[in-house]
């Protein structure tokens, strides 16, 4: 038995508590936060190495045998996502001191930040459905606090909507777990999966599956449940937006991926075909939303929605190529969304406004920032050498293998719209005549740039070094297509 699997949850939890005790000594807190996040990244990288060598780690907490206690399952998918989470967290922790006001930083920003990381890592690693609900609440509570941090008028207004929609979907999650418990009599995911195969009444299970999809779809912002997402995501500080955009919706997608490859695989003709329809509408509406506005932060926030659509499309098509594509895209999108939110945050800070109509000619003052934005727009849209390309290529390949031509065409067209929405920012914000009213602030620009360069390095690496990562992603997707491996590793029959 190995206790390694619990470390990505325990390290941020302890550091969050420690930093709450010394929250006034802001210089010390900043240094400690960087050290703890770095440590957490190193530990999760080591766990990833260990999982690759020796297979997935199953930790039975408290020594209780697996269907009876809570299990933590660090399989390759979960641990890869934990590593990505920590990469994003490291970039955000370096970006935060410049971006936040001193008052916001002193008021427990780092504590809530670490609680958010705790919740996200916990949600990735848990092997128990009710425990997943608890970790969802941990990360949501931290996100409620982060979204109102500062207490501006707009922030308060939007956070009420955010809290309400999440509270409602959490209560629905609890109800769904109650229904599932009454059918299969357990909340352990592996045992649920085993018993779902044995139950005769598949109708009630499909109903429960769709209810769970509704819950996770609300968290992940799928069509028609995405309406709450764009505005609350742009009102907090850019670093908080980056954390939200990179991590929160992806936890919802991960849950759908886990639940619909492990538990509810009894009627894919209904459930998974339904996902393809949802994916199509998510792609269209998200891309149109991104084109509909002149607020640069809102453009990036709307771009979360089609990205989620691509992943749900991969889950819907449900063959090896498409699942690999969805996982590749998931990892790529966590990194690039964080980078984009940090970039538009920096642009809005340096230009003094987030209204695209008032920004022009920034390339004269900030050439590096401009080219970084250009690069990340290419990464997001999926231009060949970068990471977005390989994910999309695999998704399209999987789609064509299964003969889903309509969704493939929609995906290609929405990629064009995504590229257009970001190029609009580049062309209108960076090109044009020099705007002399802007006070050049090289030092701020530099401290904003470093975390973005760090994130984009991983994005480019993920694209250029695809041969390095692809075997791992492929083994994850073939692992997901055979849920027996997961069930056996947890239940050990």
């Amino acid at each position: 038995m190995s206790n390694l699997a619990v470390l990505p949850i325990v390290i941020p939890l302890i550091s969050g508590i420690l930093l709450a005790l010394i929250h006034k000594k802001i210089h010390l807190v900043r240094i400690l936060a960087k050290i703890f996040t770095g440590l957490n990244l190193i530990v999760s990288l080591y766990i990833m190495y260990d999982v690759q060598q020796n297979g997935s780690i199953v930790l039975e907490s408290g020594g209780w045998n697996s269907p009876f206690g809570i299990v933590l399952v660090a399989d390759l998918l979960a641990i890869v996502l934990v590593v990505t989470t920590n990469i994003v967290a490291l970039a955000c922790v370096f970006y935060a001191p410049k971006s936040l006001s001193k008052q916001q930083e002193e008021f427990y920003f780092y504590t809530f930040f670490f609680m958010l990381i705790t919740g996200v890592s916990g949600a990735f690693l848990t092997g128990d459905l009710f425990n997943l609900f608890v970790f969802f609440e941990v990360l949501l509570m931290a996100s409620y606090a982060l979204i109102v941090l500062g207490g501006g008028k707009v922030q308060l207004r939007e956070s009420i909507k955010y809290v309400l929609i999440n509270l409602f979907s959490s209560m629905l999650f609890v109800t769904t777990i109650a229904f599932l418990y009454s059918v299969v009599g357990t909340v352990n995911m592996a045992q649920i999966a085993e018993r779902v195969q044995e139950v005769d009444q598949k109708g009630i299970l499909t109903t429960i599956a769709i209810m769970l999809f509704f819950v996770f779809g609300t968290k992940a912002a799928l069509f028609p449940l995405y309406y709450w997402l764009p505005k609350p995501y742009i009102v907090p500080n850019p670093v908080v937006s980056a954390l939200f955009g990179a991590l929160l919706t992806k936890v919802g997608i991960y849950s759908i991926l886990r639940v619909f490859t492990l538990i509810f695989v009894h009627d894919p003709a209904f459930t998974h075909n339904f996902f393809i329809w949802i994916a199509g509408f998510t792609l269209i509406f998200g891309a149109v939303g991104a084109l509909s506005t002149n607020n640069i932060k809102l453009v990036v926030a709307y771009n979360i929605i089609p990205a989620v659509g691509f992943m749900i499309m991969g889950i819907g098509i449900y063959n090896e190529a498409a699942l690999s594509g969805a996982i590749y895209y998931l990892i790529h999108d966590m990194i690039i969304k964080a980078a984009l939110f940090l970039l538009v945050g920096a642009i809005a800070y340096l230009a003094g406004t987030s209204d695209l109509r008032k920004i022009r000619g920034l390339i004269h003052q900030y050439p590096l920032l401009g080219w970084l934005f250009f690069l990340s727009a290419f990464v997001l849209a999926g231009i060949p050498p970068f990471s977005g390309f390989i994910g999309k290529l695999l998704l399209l390949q999987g789609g064509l293998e299964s003969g889903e031509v309509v969704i493939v065409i929609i995906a290609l067209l929405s990629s064009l719209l995504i590229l257009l929405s970001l190029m609009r920012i580049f062309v209108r914000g960076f090109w044009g005549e020099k705007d002399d009213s802007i006070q050049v602030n090289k030092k701020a620009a530099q401290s904003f740039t470093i975390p973005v360069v760090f994130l984009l390095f991983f994005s480019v690496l993920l694209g250029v070094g695809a041969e390095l990562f692809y075997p791992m992603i492929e083994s994850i997707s073939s692992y997901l297509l055979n849920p027996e491996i997961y069930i056996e590793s947890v239940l050990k029959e």
Partner: protein
Amino acid sequence: MEIIMSILAGILFTIGIYNLLQKQLLRIVIGTALISHGAHLFILTMGKLKRGAPPILEYGISEYSDPLPQALILTSIVISFGVTSLLLVLAYRASKENNTDNMDQLRGNENE
């Protein structure tokens, strides 16, 4: 008994959702509280009601009621308690800052 409890939970959900769709902020908070009551009642009902003694180990009792849903409810209660108290404070601050507790007036499109 399970049928009566299910109907009651359903009624709680109905009233809760009706209140969520109102304009007054406080009514919405009451709606969320009612929905969480409904959800907790559902967990209790779905774990089958009253099959034996309370789950405390005592000599000579062989039939106990299911302890797991009770633990789940207890967890869920404290979580929804925490979220509700946060929501109440948030609603208070938001109505102070924005000078209204009407959800229709809490809209806006600045910066667009």
